[in-house]
């Protein structure tokens, strides 16, 4: 792959988006640890190429479902930093007006269902959205993100089977970061690759490097086109690594030091940045400037979220029924 195949501005846009996800999460981690942010957090550091690469290949009319670890998916799909940060602070400016919180960020009008924090819960819903597209003759697709842990839930079987028998326009994207919370995937999955399970449903299964943002983009584009043209769903496994804890203050002591070191050397933003410099798309100084801009953007969102109005307590009674 050479940079000449792509528009330079678009490549830098991908880089900037990944940096945004990283800076957002790093800032949120500090805010959480200092105790100024309410709730709990499940973070995305290290997996940025998955969300950004997949979402870069989607059309505006497509929809994604996400998980308890959704901040990156929301920012990759195009929710604003203010909407996501506001939601984490429980403010009325949040994408769910403070009713959702960290684990439920999303906005259907922007192509993302409020994230679903029950592991595997979004899988049949994505199939249902795809069924609606198919029944309506629309060329839209649904993308359902999940972790490796979700592939051991019973609902994984029900959802993928239905998606396959009806040739639904849906992509099931497994971000295999090797750990379901603290439990290694080696202890919970017998097949060499999670994508091997696709064969049980008569579905395509593909495993690729999830830390290569361009590779993720290209593969997703191909599989999305197949889904869009009636060729049915795919189980796409992206091999990646979470370079932060599972949640809250988790120091991730279950990740062996050597494995972690290798993962840090392979993390997607550094990798893509080095490639952009080697391909003469941008200089390291340009990339440093982007990071500084993004940092300022995130800080601005933090300041605005803190200043934003709290919901009225009795707003808790609204939004149950139409």
């Amino acid at each position: 792959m050479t940079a000449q195949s792509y528009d330079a501005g678009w490549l830098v846009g991908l880089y900037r988006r990944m940096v945004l996800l990283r800076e957002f999460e790093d800032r949120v981690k500090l805010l959480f640890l200092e105790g100024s942010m309410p709730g709990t957090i499940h973070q995305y550091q290290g997996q940025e190429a998955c969300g950004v690469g997949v979402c870069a290949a989607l059309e505006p009319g497509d929809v994604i479902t996400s998980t308890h670890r959704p901040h990156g998916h929301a920012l990759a799909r195009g929710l604003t930093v203010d909407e996501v940060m506001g939601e984490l602070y429980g403010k009325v400016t949040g994408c769910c007006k403070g009713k959702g919180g960290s684990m439920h960020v999303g906005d259907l009008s922007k192509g993302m269902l409020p994230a679903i924090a029950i592991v595997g819960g979004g899988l049949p819903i994505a199939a249902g959205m795809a069924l609606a597209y198919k029944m309506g003759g629309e060329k839209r697709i649904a993308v359902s993100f999940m972790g490796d842990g979700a592939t051991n839930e019973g609902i994984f079987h029900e959802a993928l089977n239905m998606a396959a028998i009806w040739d639904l326009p849906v992509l099931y994207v497994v971000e295999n970061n090797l750990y379901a919370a603290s439990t290694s995937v080696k202890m919970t999955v017998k097949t060499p690759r999670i994508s091997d399970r696709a064969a049980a449903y008569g579905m395509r299964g593909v495993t690729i490097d999830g830390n290569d943002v361009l590779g993720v983009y290209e593969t997703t584009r191909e599989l999305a086109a197949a889904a869009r043209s009636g060729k049915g769903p795919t189980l796409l496994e992206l091999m990646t690594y979470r370079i932060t804890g599972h949640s809250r203050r988790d120091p991730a002591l279950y990740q062996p030091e050597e494995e972690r070191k290798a993962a840090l050397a392979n993390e997607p933003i550094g990798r893509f940045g080095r490639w952009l410099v080697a391909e003469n798309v941008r200089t390291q100084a340009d990339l440093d400037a982007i990071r500084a801009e993004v940092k300022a953007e995130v800080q601005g969102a933090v300041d605005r979220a803190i200043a934003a109005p709290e919901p009225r307590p009795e707003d808790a009674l609204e939004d149950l029924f139409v």
Partner: protein
Amino acid sequence: MSRRLGIAEALREGIAEEMRRDPKVFCIGEDIGIPGGWGGAFTVTYGLEKEFASRMVNTPIAEAGLMGVALGAALMGMRPIADVQYGDFLFCAMDQVANQVAKMRYMSGGKAQVPMVMRAPVGVTGRGAQHAQMMEPFFVPLPGIKILVPSTAYDAKGLLKSAVRDGNPVLIFEHKLLYGSKGPRSESGTVDASSDIPDGEYTVPIGKGIVRREGTDVTVVGTHLMMHRSLEAAQALSKEGISVEVIDPRSLVPFDWELLKTSVAKTNRLVVVEESPKRGGLGAEIAATLAEEMIDSLAAPIVRVAAPNTPAPFSPPMERFYVPQVSRIAEGIRGLMAMS
């Protein structure tokens, strides 16, 4: 003009009318839309595939999956009518129904819409413990789903049509002994719940109960089969000089508290009849609410006639003991009258 229809036929007619009216309405469930099949476990969707072949989505045996699929379609503007073959199977679908369907609109801050109908047969009907439960007590405490309990064919059709048009998740519990299912899927021990169904269009409003029999001495509340048995008990007690008012709530969520309170303000006495175990049931909720809000109107304690706190037994004599019979309901009412 009108025709005499049972609940299964009336529901079928209501579903067909809504599917004709709105191309977004579709059915999704197990063993539906199969030529030569049954139309679901109790014939409600029998034959609809002839007119709506592409809108009868027959699923694998996957209750959680099918409820999730229905939810996804609803979020995209479709109007699914999703059914399970027995209410008991809703436990298999519990994450989708309780965590996803019920909460999606709220969690989204009101931005996501879930115009979705769910249907589930209930009733203790000679099948042992796992095809027998009254599921209402598990769902009434769950915010985000409206719950309907029709006991007549007229209400079943009218409420179903209201549910399809409501725009929110609505769960309809239908009683197996009241369906009036015909042919190879007919039931033994059924009760006639048929109605004269008008030829013209009508709906029954969600959240409105109805007085099935007027009386002055005691108010009796019951749904489904228990409503019919309460009417029988009321008839028997009238010969003893006890005037019983029978209320059929028709909706459990929202509940027509005004109707009930107006009745109890008149009779000053209340009996709640339940086919489900007494612990944590509808009677508990009604009794607590009336104790909070109008205890001074009560001339005697509230009486609950309910199933015991066990699973439903199979053997017919044990089942008859388990489910309140007309005699047990009458006994409960007499006991209450003796207290005051």
